[in-house]
């Protein structure tokens, strides 16, 4: 991969201790939850990547690692050529301006005792942005209006509990935008919202990417909602990326059986269209005892006996499209 990627993730791993130190038997080794288990990913300027996977596949942990809110176990993250994997909090402060995050639940991620103006003004104060109060007020209003809360004055003095879920999520987005970040991590930003609001928030993110040239990592469990605006789609399963490609490649020509299964269950608003649905059997395996070989083999409808033994490498299908499945290895 070329050097101009401004965010590069290499072999990133995050293991959580599964046992409490006090409850552990001396003879037994500490077991780990393999939340993120070797992820490679790169992001370019104003690119939108959708990270798709079931709950528990490690996509939220990946976001926390990128934000430096969790310490990674192994691997590197570099941003604009600089290694940012292990930074002290004061070293990370400047970086926080450039990488911002939108949390999943707008009902939990806003402090109930602050009004909207305080919430959006706070990052400016923390980072010492804005020459004076007027300048900051201008920035706060612009962030609110860019996030679709118009006119901004109506909302400034309100408290989060007076807003709807969609409006709250717009406030969360505005609080991230006010720092003028270069990367926006959106961790399932629409999963807690009504279906009618979801499209609005996704459209908002799509707009921002055009107007503000922000790169977005859009984390979701719903493959159907990414088609709108993602440049590339990465499918995650049990802490690993199993397929990655441009949006059209992954949605139109999925190669990994897991991607195929995810795509086959997206509802299509046409009752005449009968498709074969691939319903996956069983639960996601326990991330403490990861299956041997291909980690998808216990649930894979086309698994072969070799899948149990060898971990499939990435097969390059086109310049941009890769998938990890033994069936693709020729």
């Amino acid at each position, binding site marked *: 991969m070329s050097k101009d990627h401004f965010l590069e993730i290499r072999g990133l791993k995050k293991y959580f201790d599964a046992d409490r130190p006090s409850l552990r038997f001396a003879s037994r080794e500490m077991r780990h939850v393999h939340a993120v288990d070797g992820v490679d990913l790169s992001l370019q300027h104003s690119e939108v990547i959708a990270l798709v996977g079931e709950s528990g596949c490690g996509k939220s942990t990946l976001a926390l690692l990128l934000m430096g809110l969790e310490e990674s176990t192994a691997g590197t993250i570099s941003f604009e050529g600089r290694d940012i994997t292990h930074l002290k909090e004061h070293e990370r402060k400047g970086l*926080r*301006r450039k990488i*911002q995050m939108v949390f999943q639940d707008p009902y939990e991620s806003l402090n*109930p005792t602050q009004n909207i103006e305080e919430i959006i003004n706070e990052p400016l104060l923390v980072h010492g942005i804005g020459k004076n109060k007027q300048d900051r007020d201008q920035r706060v209003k612009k962030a609110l209006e860019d996030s679709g809360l118009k006119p901004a004055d109506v909302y400034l003095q309100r*408290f989060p509990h007076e807003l709807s879920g969609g409006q709250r999520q717009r406030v969360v987005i505005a609080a991230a935008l006010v720092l003028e970040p270069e990367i926006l991590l959106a961790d399932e930003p629409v999963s807690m919202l009504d279906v009618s609001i979801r499209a609005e928030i996704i459209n908002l993110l799509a707009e921002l990417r055009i107007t503000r040239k922000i790169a977005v990592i859009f984390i979701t469990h719903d493959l159907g909602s990414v088609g709108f605006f993602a440049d590339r789609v990465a499918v995650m399963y049990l802490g690993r990326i199993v397929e990655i490609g441009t949006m059209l490649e992954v949605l139109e020509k999925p190669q990994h059986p897991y991607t195929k299964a995810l795509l086959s269950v997206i509802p299509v608003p046409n009752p005449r269209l009968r498709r074969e649905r691939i319903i996956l059997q069983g639960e996601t395996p326990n991330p403490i005892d990861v299956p041997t070989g291909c980690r998808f083999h216990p649930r894979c409808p086309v698994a072969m006996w070799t899948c149990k033994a060898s971990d499939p490498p990435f097969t390059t299908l086109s310049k941009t499209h890769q998938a990890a499945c033994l069936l693709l290895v020729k």
Partner: protein
Amino acid sequence: MTPPLQHGTFPLQRWRMLLKRFGWALFTILFVVVLNFFLFRVLPGDPARQGIRDPRLTPETIQAIRVRFGLDKPIINCFESLNPVKVGSCGVNPLDTQFFIYVKNLLKGDLGQSFYYNRPVKDILGERLWNTILLIGAGQILAILIGVVFGLFAAWKARTAIDYAALISGLVAWSLPTFWLAIILLFWGTNHGLPIGGKATPGMSSYPFMQQMGDLLQHLFLPTLAYTIIYMGEYMLIMRSSLLDVLAEDYILAAKAKGLSAFQILKDHALKNSMLPLVTLIAINLGFTVGGAVQIETVFSWPGLGGAIFEAVGRKDYPLLQGGFLLIAISVILANFIADLTYSYLDPRVQAD
């Protein structure tokens, strides 16, 4: 520019809520006044015979005592037309019943005459109340300060040795029986030459003011210490768990993602939100402890309100009991009202209901 739509309605909403709460507080006090009056009249025993338990007491003397304290008057008029079961005495002047006189005197600020001390209840309660406020005020302020600081510290250092030490000592302090701790401290004080009873050394009133104050502080030391230990644990545990709850919220993580330092997060986001349960607790404790320091006051012979009420029960001193109960009820209601006010200031969501 469009004018703010919602902002203008906030103060009105807030006033309306406060007015509603105030109305409820008044209603509760009225209810207590009525209940308080009848509660002591339902109790068995003749108060007129409590003062002098001499079998030679003549009926004339008993009657004279009754007249003197107004016990000869009917308790309440029965209001025939409204009251099918005819409770009370019928056919008497409603203005000349004990209940009416009680309410009338109450409005004048007169709580009656103590049977035992033969002094106005108001004066006795007044003296005792100041002593109690002195003891409880000092104890509560210390307990809140120490408890909150230790609780904050324990939560900030959660799941470390510091936290576990604070947790265990808090639990132990909270679960100690009050009277037991007071007695232990009393023994300890005896060995260290501290005064163990009352609020002043006899004869102190002829000494200069500063020396009197020093003497008072010495007397205050042990009961305040007992009080502080008992309540400190409770405040600490509540503060710790409340702060831990808040620190686990998403908006704390969001604040960290925005670049706030750990101290800024604690100061600007966690503290205000985690103080909410504590405000309720402090208000309830303040209300109840006006009469609730009975055990400590009894062990240390502190001339406070709790001790007065405790003694009045044994002496069947109904006017004093009645007045004491009313005072406790009013302070509980008042403390809750103040908690409501503080709450609406701390938590904007309260204004909404």
